[in-house]
């Protein structure tokens, strides 16, 4: 390696670490914007429940259609930031696994799927709020479709968390990239995401889409997981990478 190569690689790695820091913050930002949009504006945390009647649901959309649509627009914009966040996780996982990093790659793919899993039901709710009174029965079923979908697909996020956990627990470096407790927390989060998958089996109670298990545990576990991973990226993984590269500099 010439001195030019070292200087160039240091410059790019400096930029890489700075970019990664920003991308790590994107995780919390996406969560905050999602909640501002879905909760504060749209009032959809949780969405009106499966035990509500046709008239009640149509009334919700007719009375609050504007704020529902606007809040979901904001939520969709926010949730996009899960993309850069996932990528940073993948880069740090690759530092654990080495050159061939199957877990990191799969995690990145699943992170992309997660964003789509937010987009699609959001768009369906927007459509339900668009002209709710023209065909009330259709509005009612469209609300079912969006709400069930929003909660029913936690498998990709669960696997994403499990893959991160496996990478963390398999880390054999003297100074691990991530702290081990994050691996166990990710396993807890993965288990906690899963009850939502069963929400189409109930219209009331804990596994209905607005229930304690399906909605609230899923949301809380998701929030805790984003916060914990972001914290470890910023406090441990990225500085660890910078320290390792500082040793390369002459």
């Amino acid at each position, binding site marked *: 390696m010439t001195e030019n190569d070292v200087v160039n690689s240091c410059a790019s790695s400096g930029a890489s670490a700075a970019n990664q820091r920003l991308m790590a913050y994107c995780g919390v930002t996406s969560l905050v914007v999602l909640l501002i949009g879905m909760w504060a504006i749209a009032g959809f945390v949780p969405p009106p429940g499966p035990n509500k009647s046709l008239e009640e649901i149509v009334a919700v959309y007719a009375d609050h259609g504007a704020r529902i649509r606007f809040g979901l627009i904001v939520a969709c914009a926010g949730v996009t930031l899960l993309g850069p966040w996932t990528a940073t996780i993948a880069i740090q996982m690759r530092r654990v696994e080495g050159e061939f990093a199957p877990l990191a790659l799969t995690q990145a793919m699943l992170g992309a799927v997660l964003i789509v899993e937010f987009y699609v039901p959001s768009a369906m709710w927007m459509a339900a709020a668009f002209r709710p009174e023209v065909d009330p029965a259709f509005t009612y079923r469209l609300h079912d479709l969006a709400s069930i979908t929003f909660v029913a697909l936690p498998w990709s996020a669960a696997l994403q968390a499990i893959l991160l956990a496996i990478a963390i627990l398999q880390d054999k470096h003297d100074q691990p990239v991530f*702290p*081990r*407790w*994050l*691996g*166990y*927390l990710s*396993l*807890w989060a993965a*288990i*906690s995401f*899963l*009850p939502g998958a069963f929400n189409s*089996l*109930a*219209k*009331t*109670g*804990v*596994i209905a889409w607005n229930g*304690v*298990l399906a909605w609230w*545990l899923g949301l809380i576990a998701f929030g805790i997981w984003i916060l914990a991973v972001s914290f470890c990226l910023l406090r441990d993984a990225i500085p660890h990478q910078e320290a390792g590269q500082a040793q390369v500099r002459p």
Partner: protein
Amino acid sequence: MLPAVMERHVPGEPGIWVLLFGDMLVFTVLFTVFLHERGAKPELFAHSQAALNRALGATNTLVLLTSSLLVVLASHAMRRPPLRHFARRLTLGGALVGACFVVIKGFEYHEKIAAGIAPSTNEFFMYYFVLTGLHLAHVIIGLAVLVVLSTVAGNSGPTRTHIAFFEGGACFWHMVDFLWIVIFSLIFLVR
């Protein structure tokens, strides 16, 4: 060389207690919600409870207790070099006994469904299926963990990390055991 007597020792490793306490918290919230709903309709809950098969529930409690004991003995064997060769067989034995829980549970669910009882039948049965179902998922995960532990136990010279991993996985299984103790009491017996 590992000390024969463990002093002030974290079972497993500190991180796993994040997972264990996290899971315990979730189940505790569920138990509380269950009792809250029961408070609104105590007669419905008591009446529905009579349809449950308490004998199978009690048997399952004994199954998990026995399975846990075998895993504890395996843990002890892991830490004492002259007895180490028992560890793998004890762990697999624990898994085998634990697998009986799944079979008995399957039979129990079949009995209910054949009698026309489903999660949608009433609130009590929804909680019955959800709580026992969530627990069953943990049993299945735990059985997979035990199988992995049996390969760890098969190592001729386990390192400290191996032992910590074994203890941690064993603690997950014991948690599954004691969660069932609470579920059995709460759903099958208390009214």
